């Protein structure tokens, strides 16, 4: 029912009796101003707000029907109170406190794209070595899908000798001589499993909790939940070692349905840290400043006219980019580190390398970046060529990451930052206990196929129990026999160390309280917590 008076133009006054008008932003305005505003209302604006208006009328009537003491907007779909992540639109990355006291303030995630072989690094299986070259038992093949293995493959023992290291006595191969000095600082999970056996979906599952495109990366979730301490840098930064890009593509650090401010920003460890961030030649910083001031002024007028919060976000993005010109260049410049530090990581400034990225990661962590993600490449050791061979390329990959990881852990530990930084290392799935026999033939190089059924990751710092191993695989290292950990359990555990109940770090989208751990039940792996 419409009050006939309220739709007469002459009746639009500041009379507070007309509740429907009172709530609109044009209440106290002068008639000319109202006219100007109404002229600014294009057909699109009208249609958009009209449909939203019908919807809100419906919701309003429903809310009356199901009125409860707590407002509907403050509840999750399951009826528990919702955590509020609303912010000042001009400061979308401002810091919010965690749900409960956190053990970790930031995460450094080292992803070995291609899936490193756990059987050449951390899984000591003497029985598998003993049975090397024998036909694989039929039970290993029943109901299994492989990317390349066909027929009956042969079992393949570890290509490298193992020994026990540290006080914890964890087994490690001879490929990681520097890392093993930190073996008492890390916690292994040897019973990780996934339900994806191809790289791209498996990587998406690891990083977004879903094998399909369009979901926010865990870095986006964490920045959405906690903001970033440093307003001059993105809260979520991605670094790639060069070589091949991860198969999952840029969606691995995409923000999905979360506001795009929370997506990962890929920085480069040589040349310009962020492409197109620097001023063009002959444009000085002061000229850039006045240019930005002009653009900001136009944007502000735009906002005054339409009141779209996205406009404010755009202003803040321009401003952050301007501040980043200084800060990002400084943070990503490893030449500012001493020669000794560079040597400890094995850095070669001016190159794209995992070593350089590890040092950058430490510098970013010191500058309050919330989530730092490093991708290394070339771990897909099928044995189909020299680079992807366990006896050749794999050794190079180990050499590329061993020293930098050890140096990063040393640096964090020395600076007391391992107390509140969570470091995670892993791939997207594991590798088979059988030698790959592509097309049923004996291949020139030695390699293993994909095994989603079992793989190993390690975590260090930030509330994780050091010198501990969780989970176990069978004598062949093929299937999990104890304490399986799903990817979503890992996510729940990581979010727990950051101070969140994974159910509560959520975002309403498509009628669901969307969350990193997917709608399936996830468990915080309490065994690995310190």
């Amino acid at each position: 029912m419409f009050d006939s008076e309220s739709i007469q133009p002459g009746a639009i006054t500041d009379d507070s009796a007309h509740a429907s008008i009172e709530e609109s932003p044009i209440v106290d305005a002068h008639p000319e101003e109202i006219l100007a505003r109404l002229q600014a209302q294009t057909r699109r604006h009208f249609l958009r707000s009209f449909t939203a208006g019908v919807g809100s009328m419906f919701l309003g009537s429903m809310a009356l029907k199901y009125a409860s003491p707590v407002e509907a907007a403050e509840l999750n779909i399951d009826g528990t109170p919702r955590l509020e992540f609303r912010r000042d639109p001009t400061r979308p990355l401002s810091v919010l406190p965690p749900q409960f006291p956190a053990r970790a303030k930031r995460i450094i995630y080292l992803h070995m794209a291609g899936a490193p072989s756990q059987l050449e690094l951390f899984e000591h299986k003497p029985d598998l070595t003993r049975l090397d070259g024998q036909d694989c038992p039929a039970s290993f093949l029943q109901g299994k899908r492989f990317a390349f293995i066909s027929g009956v493959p042969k079992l393949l023992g570890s290509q490298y000798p193992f020994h026990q290291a540290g006080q914890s006595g964890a087994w490690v191969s001879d490929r990681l001589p520097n890392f093993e000095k930190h073996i008492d600082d890390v916690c292994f999970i040897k019973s990780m499993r996934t339900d994806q056996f191809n790289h791209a979906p498996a990587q998406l599952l690891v990083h977004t909790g879903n094998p399909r495109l369009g979901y926010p990366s865990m870095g986006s979730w964490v920045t959405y939940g906690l903001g970033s301490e440093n307003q001059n840098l993105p809260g979520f930064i991605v670094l790639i070692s060069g070589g091949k890009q991860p198969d999952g593509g840029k969606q691995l650090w995409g923000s999905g349905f979360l506001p795009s401010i929370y997506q990962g920003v890929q920085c480069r460890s040589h040349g310009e840290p962020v492409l197109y961030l620097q001023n063009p030649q002959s444009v000085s910083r002061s000229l850039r400043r006045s240019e930005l001031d002009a653009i900001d002024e136009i944007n502000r007028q735009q906002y005054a006219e339409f009141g779209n919060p996205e406009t404010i976000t755009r202003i803040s993005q321009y401003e952050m980019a301007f501040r980043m010109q200084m800060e990002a260049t400084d943070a990503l410049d490893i030449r500012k580190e001493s020669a000794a530090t560079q040597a400890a990581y094995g850095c070669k400034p001016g190159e794209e390398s995992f070593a350089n990225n590890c040092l950058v990661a430490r510098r970013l962590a010191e500058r309050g970046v919330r989530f730092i993600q490093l991708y290394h490449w070339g771990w897909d050791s099928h044995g189909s060529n020299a680079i992807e061979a366990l006896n050749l390329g794999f050794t190079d990959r180990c050499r590329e990451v061993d020293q930098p990881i050890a140096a990063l852990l040393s640096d964090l530990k020395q600076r007391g930052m391992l107390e509140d930084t969570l470091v995670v290392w892993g791939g997207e799935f594991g590798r088979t206990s059988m030698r790959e026999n592509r097309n049923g033939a004996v291949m020139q190089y030695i390699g293993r196929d994909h095994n989603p059924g079992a793989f190993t990751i390690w975590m260090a710092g930030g509330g994780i129990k050091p010198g501990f191993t969780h989970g176990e695989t069978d004598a062949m290292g093929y299937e999990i026999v104890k304490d399986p950990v799903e990817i979503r359990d890992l996510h729940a555990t990581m979010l727990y160390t950051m101070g969140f109940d994974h159910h509560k770090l959520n975002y309403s989208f498509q009628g669901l309280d969307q969350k990193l751990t997917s709608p399936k039940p996830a468990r915080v792996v309490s065994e690995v917590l310190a």
Partner: protein
Amino acid sequence: MIAPFRQWPLRDRLGLFALAPILLLLALLLFFPPDGAQRSDWAQFIGGFHLLTIHFPIALVFLIPVLEIAGRSRRFQYLHASVELVLALAVFSAIASAVLGWFLARSGGSSGTLVVQHMWGGFFVSVFCCLCWMLRGRFAGQRFDIAYISCLVATVLLVSFTGYRGGQLSHGATHLTEHMPSPLREWLGVSKQEEKGPATATPDSSFAARVEPVFAQNCVTCHGPSRQKGGLRLDSYEAILRGGKSGPVIKAGDPKNSKLFQRISSAHDSDNIMPPPGKTPLSTDQIKLIELWISAGASPNLAANAVEDAASIARPAAEITFAEIDDAAVAKQRAPIANALTELDKRYPDVIEYESRGSAKLVINASLMGSKFSDDDVAQLKPLYNQIVAADFSNTAITDRSATNLAAMKQLRMLRLMHTRITDATVLALGGLSELESLNVFDTGITPAALKAAEHMPKLQHFYAGQTKITANESLPDALKGKVQF
């Protein structure tokens, strides 16, 4: 004078014929009693039909007195003629069911008084049924007809008793009495306690000490005295071995083929998982414990320490639970500092933050302000000192002038002063920080003299002294051994 067998009436000939399986059954029961041991699939398969066929003799036996009594009236006289056939069917179905019952009992998981009573009940049902058949009509009109009548009464009573015991076996010992209204219960003198299955496990056995508590804590609400989902009870050793409607749930020595173990060790999102989704899951160690117990023979009296590896199972890590934040209580706690905080937050954006949404404690991170943050700024935070639990002043311009202010932050658990110009004077002033767990003076002018103050901090766990004048070969006081990081 006994006539030749061929001239005997059909009934007598069949009756004698029925004697053979009855004797066979007796021999089976005597020489091969059910002992709880697991046997071949065939026995299990055949035994399964017991549950199906058992309903025939029960119904038929109850039908006989109905037919007999109704047949006395003139109107239903014709029913009398049916009794003969019904009796014959009852005899053969009773014998067949009893034999099938033996198969079921023999196939495993069955032992104990309930089973023995049910077994002999079933045997005597078939014997008395057969007797009824032989006696019926033989002494019609004579005073010996009382023999037939009492035989029939005995059969009916026996069927009732055996059927009740059978019901207890498959639906739980209290399936009839549990919902009995309490007045009736009192009148009959049935108490709930009496109905509990007998516990025959040795008290200090692995079962009683370790396994049973797991069941008691996680399973018996649905598989116990009050409810028997799937016909399964897990509140006594016998009940566990007996299994549920679908048969035994434990195969001694073989956890992988024990239904109970398969269900508790399913993937935690599968439909088969027990306890079902939504209920508290068993911890991995509890699952391991049950696996070890079954592997060791699922014995009731195996000593607790005899189960290999069980001793090495650490106390299970507590499952993480999340409490809801009580917003009103938090607001109340925060009220005293709220105004000061709002002011200071404007001046130092993103520097001061609550430790968590449920806390009034504060965390300070001034390290990103660098040289713009000085001793004066530390002093500005004064109204908040008592709430600060962690503070990072690394990279800032603070000096020893802040020492007394830092020392006033009595709640501090973590203090970071990396890359600053502080000296030993600051560390020496911090001796009274009784909550401090982590002190970071990396890359400062600290000398070994500072160790004196650090030594007396009762909760100190980490002292980061890298790139200072304290070197790795410094001889450390005992209290700091293993706590200093270079």
